[in-house]
């Protein structure tokens, strides 16, 4: 059996509400909240970035896996906000966690799907027999341009998944990917903020790929929506995943535990996989979970998981998503937010 042997998430404690951002730009908060079904978003602390978020998530995954970090033979981090343009995030992480130096490390980028990409690579190394344990992580501290629609949702957070074949918490039954050249969202080299195609990010991008991957994996496995306890779809806002799930035949009850976007925003590479983490927190043995990521550019990775008897004992070995996101929240004004996000330039 091959699958997840440890999982963990991390979301910073800072928040800014949609109302506060709307107030800054003279917009109506209620209209925006009703439009995107997001009420507040996480903000990274001034000393937090993709690397520190990945480390925190990976520590929680190690707590649940209960394995010696030295046993991990591969570490892959997916993000669109790696702190260095040239220098891996993964090397900082392995030294911080006491993994390696006999370890294969790589950073990935594929907009919001870089995290599931890292998971897929980690899983594939176990499946091939090349490694006994490998970790896939997705983390981001994404930026929306001031005043842009993305500013209401672009947030910070991440999740880590250790793949292995002993003491598996959730077996990976199938994977399926769906990819095409679709320029719905991009950021050119050296630019601080991304650009997007507004409504073009919907049907031709998000829905084409999420539905393509969702339909593909259902066909590949012969499973029906009612065979699943939970379903998680990438969450650029609150509406898109609910619409995609409904189109595929899933109910809101199946999607709700992994629908984490209304209170933390879009954690980009950490989005669908943090939804998966929340669904695993709620799962009972034998539950099937569908996860479909989406990355602009564009593509989706779909996974079917089935939890094992070991899931319940592991759930409380590290903070659950709910505990982490409700225990401590520090709300920022828009002025504090722009300071925290490094949007203020000081003289040298």
């Amino acid at each position, binding site marked *: 059996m091959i699958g997840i042997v440890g999982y963990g998430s991390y979301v910073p404690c800072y928040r800014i509400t949609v109302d506060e951002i709307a107030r800054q730009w003279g917009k109506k908060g209620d209209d925006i909240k009703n439009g995107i079904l997001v009420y507040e978003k996480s903000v990274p*602390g001034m*000393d937090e*970035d993709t690397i*520190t978020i990945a480390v925190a998530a990976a520590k929680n995954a190690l707590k649940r896996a209960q394995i010696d970090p030295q046993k991990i033979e591969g570490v892959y981090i997916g993000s669109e906000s790696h702190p260095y343009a040239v220098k891996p995030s993964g090397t900082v992480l392995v030294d911080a966690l006491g993994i390696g130096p006999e370890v294969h490390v790589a950073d990935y980028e594929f907009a919001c799907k870089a995290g599931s990409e890292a998971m897929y690579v980690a899983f594939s190394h176990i499946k091939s027999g090349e490694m006994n344990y490998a970790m896939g992580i997705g983390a981001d501290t994404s930026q929306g341009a001031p005043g842009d629609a993305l500013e209401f949702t672009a947030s910070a957070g991440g999740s880590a998944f250790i793949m292995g074949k002993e003491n598996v918490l959730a077996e990976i039954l199938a994977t399926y990917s769906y990819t095409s050249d679709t320029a719905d969202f991009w950021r050119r080299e050296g630019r601080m903020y991304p650009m997007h195609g507004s409504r073009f990010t919907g049907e031709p991008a998000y829905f084409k790929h999420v539905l393509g991957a969702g339909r593909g994996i259902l066909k590949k496995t012969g499973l029906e929506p009612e065979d699943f306890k939970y379903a998680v779809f990438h969450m650029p806002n609150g509406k898109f995943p609910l619409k995609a799930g409904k189109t595929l035949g899933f109910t809101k009850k199946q999607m709700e535990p992994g629908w984490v976007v209304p209170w933390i925003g879009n954690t980009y590479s950490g989005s669908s996989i943090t939804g998966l983490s929340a669904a695993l927190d709620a799962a009972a043995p034998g539950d099937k979970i569908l996860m479909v990521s989406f990355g602009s550019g564009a593509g989706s990775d779909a996974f079917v998981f089935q939890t094992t008897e070991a899931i319940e004992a592991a759930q409380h070995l590290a903070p659950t998503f709910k505990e982490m996101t409700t225990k401590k929240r520090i709300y920022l004004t828009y002025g504090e937010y722009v300071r925290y996000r490094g949007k203020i330039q000081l003289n040298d």
Partner: protein
Amino acid sequence: MKSIVPRYTREIPQRARLEGAKCLKCGHIEFPPRLVCSKCRHREFETISLQKTGTLLTYTIIYTPAETFSMQSPFAVGIVELDDGVRLTTQIVDVPLDELKIGKRVEMIFRLVQKEGHAGILEYGYKAVLTN
């Protein structure tokens, strides 16, 4: 400009993983490690991972920081006693400053400490957050 890279790299075991040196003769823990035990003068140690939880012994609020930390001002710096007795100076983060109190429990976490200017390296290390 003198690069900080060699020193930063050398200190990763302590700053990133909180590794200390335990004297093989008297059991005293040195942090950071030393060549000679400050208690019994013995020269042999084993490397240990320090406890990641402790108690806030004292703290101060920095209102006029060094330039590197100017964006973070005001912020808290305190002395923490880890549960294995090691004391260290550290920033205390993710807390409204009026909630700080001597005796509160803390957990050590991994954060960005400072940036070497606009083009230099990013320096990571330990900080503390309150757990109660």
